[in-house]
């Protein structure tokens, strides 16, 4: 069985987060996916240290219910410092180019504005990232195979050389 893809959703709107989780699970029903929900970045980071996700869907504004909560960019910085390989999708209700630029500068993999088609856009982005993850896994697997093949060839040449020397 494949190891599940670990995804964190960080959004202070629980109704939105629950709906998004259900939508992702429905859309990617054929893939093993484990999704955890967090209302604020601080809670996400507590868990992050124990179970590093491959992917985080992170809302930019996280202080609606908790005024002192860190914003999405600060959480993005924490995530990237903790594990640079984690993909982060930034969500925002503002179609603001400054937020978009800032998100990419801080290491976000994608930036999605919340509209009526948000879920579709997120799923499309996830699909692309799953493909990239699979491609990277394939590269790792081929590298391992290549290393093994190289060792076998080296061992074979070494063996033949040893036999040749012994026979002389």
């Amino acid at each position, binding site marked *: 069985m494949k190891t599940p893809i670990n995804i964190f959703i960080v959004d202070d709107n629980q109704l939105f987060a629950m709906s998004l989780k259900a939508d992702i699970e*429905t859309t990617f029903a054929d893939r093993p996916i484990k999704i955890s929900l967090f209302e604020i970045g601080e809670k996400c980071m507590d868990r992050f240290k124990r179970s590093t996700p491959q992917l985080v869907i992170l809302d930019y504004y996280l202080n609606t219910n908790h005024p002192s909560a860190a914003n999405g960019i600060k959480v993005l910085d924490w995530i990237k410092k903790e594990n640079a390989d984690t993909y982060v999708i930034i969500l925002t209700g503002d179609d603001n180019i400054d937020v978009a630029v800032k998100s990419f500068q801080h290491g976000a993999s994608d930036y999605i504005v919340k509209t009526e088609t948000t879920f579709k856009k997120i799923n499309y982005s996830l699909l692309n990232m799953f493909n990239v993850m699979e491609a990277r896994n394939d590269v790792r697997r081929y590298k391992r195979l290549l290393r093994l093949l190289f060792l076998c060839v080296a061992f074979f040449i070494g063996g033949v050389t040893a036999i040749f020397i012994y026979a002389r």
Partner: protein
Amino acid sequence: MHQLNINKNAANVCDLAYLTEIMAGKKTLIKGIMDRFLIQIPEELSNLKNAIAEEKYASIQSYAHTMKSSVSIMGITTLTPILKLMEDLAKLGLDIKKIEELNKQLNTICNKALSEITNESVGYL
């Protein structure tokens, strides 16, 4: 399978077609979202009411912004322009009277939506 009667009445403010589509018709998931809606919307309305009473424009903007996502899941399209205008006015920090007026409309429509979802969720037990 339970029929979504809520979609058939033009007088209703909710349209659950979108929710049903994204949940692929799974009743348990739809029920979970409905239950969350019934808890969250009164909280959001209360937060917004307090923020308006205290004329805290940043909070009004933030709550109106959050509510846009919440109501769109239940297909309450009539609220999108109302919340957008509230958010824009709060962002500029002006016209609290207009914001109060919009808040009255918001409450009327949300209370109707809460009533519709309460009735509808019975069919998902």
